[in-house]
């Protein structure tokens, strides 16, 4: 029996959004039109979006044109898989032997399929059994927050998946034993498009050949199919002939890797908690190590009487128990109102009372072999990691950074400072052309907040840039802070027109032009003129 959750990517993304929201936020509408985008193209849309005319393959603006209130979500296969895990667990709780096929699709052995019981009237009773089982599973899933689930039961996996896709919401379509091929032949060829690009291509080809139903395809000869439709076509053909049978391989439930420690009585200082979680952190790392795994992303939850503080921590290599203890310390320190340190990204919840429980949940685990030190040892590196952790203890987690490059036009856009011990995420790609960016050597000083400046021509009239990108006068003197400096040479303008749709809402929007200016003292500056007529120093070639 196959369970199918339609448009799983959308469901997973919405579940994540709901999860990320604070508890007191208004409940999100799960039935709102939503689409998942990859490369600005719609990959998955939900039923509400489809009803508005949004289709797979539409560009972002087409989708928005058809349905302005559509929720746009980013594609993230990891997230889809992660959020499918609770569904697997919910099904597993009812019926062990679950086989996940891909996010949104799983198979379970159907009850009664292989040991059918003859009813009193000589009728098969197993059909009712499957529908009853589907109803029980659907009920469990609705409790877990998954509203749309469809079931299909058949002799083989492929047919069951097809049946699930034909089933109405929360009910089961059962294909009688031995009639899989018959069921498949009754379907239109367009259903093959669900199998991916290969399927879409074959469906299109068959449609253009005038074959409407899979039954028409089944009528072709074996040799013809093998010669003309490739291995995928042959697979499909064998299935509609009823010759191909895929059985499911079930998974063993994942071991419980999360570790937690409860405090009785609750602890109210970050130091006391940090001290007490040491053995739990060691147990957590050892539990992973027993299975030849290491964690590269761990979610730490600290429960206190009035709520939970949860944060996901990333590690560039892998977490040791010592790292985990440090993270607990930082998380509590940032969350506790009494601490003087401020957190860059709030943990979502301020800790208002004593901590009752700390829990470590592995978010991303990888094989330990990928992260093993070389035989010659990572001695120096280990030392650096420890030394820098000491600096972090002094000045705070966010005060120690690692510079990384990313794509962008302005000098400040082209770099990012990632907190030490975190993986850089969400960087813009460097390789793109980025038209409008300044050529030449990069400035050695890039100001986080640009400095105010003034540029005037020989007659002390402020220099500006016209809408066509022309300079109104020759830069003669520039003022940096209080000092005026004569200009020796200058280059530009490099016009940029970024974020014009944000015009008036603050920095980084509207028309602008960048200049390179060399002072008579040999110092060079990267200046930026912004639309109404203000100048700022973005960077210096010091």
């Amino acid at each position, binding site marked *: 029996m196959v369970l199918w959750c339609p448009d799983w990517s959308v469901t997973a993304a919405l579940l994540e959004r709901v999860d990320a929201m604070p508890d007191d936020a208004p409940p999100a509408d799960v039935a709102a039109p939503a689409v998942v985008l990859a490369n600005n193209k719609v990959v998955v849309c939900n039923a509400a979006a489809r009803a508005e005319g949004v289709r797979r393959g539409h560009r972002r603006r087409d989708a928005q044109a058809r349905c302005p209130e559509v929720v746009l979500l980013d594609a993230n296969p990891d997230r889809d898989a992660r959020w499918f895990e609770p569904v697997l667990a919910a099904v597993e709780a009812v019926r062990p032997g679950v086989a996940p096929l891909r996010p949104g699709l799983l198979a379970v052995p159907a009850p009664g399929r292989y040991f059918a019981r003859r009813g009193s009237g000589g009728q098969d009773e197993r059909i009712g059994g499957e529908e009853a089982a589907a109803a029980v599973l659907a009920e469990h899933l609705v409790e877990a927050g998954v509203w749309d689930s469809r079931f299909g039961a058949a002799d083989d996996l492929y047919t069951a998946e097809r049946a699930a896709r034909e089933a109405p919401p929360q009910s089961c379509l059962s294909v009688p034993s031995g009639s899989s091929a018959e069921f498949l032949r009754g379907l239109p060829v367009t259903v093959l498009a669900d199998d991916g690009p290969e399927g879409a291509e074959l469906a299109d080809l068959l449609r253009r050949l005038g074959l409407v139903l899979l039954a028409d395809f089944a009528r072709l000869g074996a040799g013809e199919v093998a010669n003309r439709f490739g291995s995928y076509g042959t697979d499909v053909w064998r299935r509609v002939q009823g010759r191909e049978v895929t059985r499911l391989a079930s998974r063993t439930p994942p071991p419980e890797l999360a570790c937690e420690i409860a405090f009785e009585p609750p602890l109210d200082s970050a130091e006391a908690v940090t001290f007490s979680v040491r053995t739990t952190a060691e147990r957590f790392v050892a539990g992973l190590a027993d299975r030849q795994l290491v964690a590269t992303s761990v979610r730490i939850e600290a429960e206190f009487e009035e709520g939970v503080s949860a944060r996901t921590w990333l590690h560039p290599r892998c977490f040791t128990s010592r790292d985990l203890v440090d993270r607990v310390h930082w998380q509590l320190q940032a969350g506790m109102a009494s601490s003087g340190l401020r957190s860059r990204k709030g943990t979502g919840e301020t800790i208002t009372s004593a901590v009752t429980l700390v829990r470590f949940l592995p978010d991303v685990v990888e094989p330990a072999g990928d992260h093993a030190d070389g035989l010659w040892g990572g001695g120096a590196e280990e030392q650096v990691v*420890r030394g820098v952790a000491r600096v972090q203890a002094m000045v705070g987690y966010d005060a120690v950074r690692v510079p990384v490059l990313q794509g962008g036009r302005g000098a400040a856009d082209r770099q990012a400072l990632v907190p030490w011990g975190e993986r850089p995420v969400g960087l813009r790609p460097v390789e793109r052309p980025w038209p409008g960016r300044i050529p030449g050597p990069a400035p050695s000083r890039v100001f986080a907040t640009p400095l105010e400046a003034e540029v005037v021509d020989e007659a002390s009239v402020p220099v500006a840039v016209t809408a066509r990108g022309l300079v109104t006068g020759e830069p003669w003197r520039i003022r940096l802070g209080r000092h005026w400096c004569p200009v020796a040479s200058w280059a530009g303008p490099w016009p940029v027109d970024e974020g014009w749709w944000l015009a008036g809402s603050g920095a980084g929007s509207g028309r602008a032009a960048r200049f390179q200016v060399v002072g008579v003292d040999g110092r060079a500056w990267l200046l930026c003129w912004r639309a109404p007529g203000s100048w700022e120093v973005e960077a210096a070639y010091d």
Partner: protein
Amino acid sequence: MSVRPLEIDDPRAVVDRLRGRIAALEGGPTRLLVPVLPALAGLVQLRTGGVYGVDSASLGMALAAGASQAGEWVGFAGWDDFGAEAAQQRGIVLGRTVLVPTPGEHWLEVTAALVDVLKVVVLRPPGGVDAKSASLLEARLRARSAVLVVQGEWPRCEARISAEQVTWDGIGHGRGRLRERRATLVASGGGRMPVRADVVL
């Protein structure tokens, strides 16, 4: 039997290496050479335990670049305007760079902790440094075999490198773009005659 010819590229460097080895054998704090960029080779030699002064951000980066390219870890403290792209273009490996943009009042402790584990630390002190703190940090440098590059005031420097007569190529009045910076670098201090070199920075 053939004798392998002796390769002497720079007699001074050989003498320095031998001195370092002697010091190591005697058990004293060794003053090992830290690699510098080829462009700066004739001008300054970084030695562990030393403090070197610079007068611009790009010189600070250039002094750290040699060690970074040789596989060492480097750090920048007090640089709230670190130009990552420029650092990379100068040869600093960003993956082995630690940056503490605003150490605040803890800047001396932070620098001392960085010196413990990094080869070259480039510091921009927020204000004046008293002689006592400076000598404490210098002792730490010698013990940990690290180099401190200071952009700003420091009581005693092994050498101070400054750029004179900076000119930019490739830029005119509304034409071209910044291409290359030429400068005459002057290294002074340590009781020696100032050394000058024309370099492309």
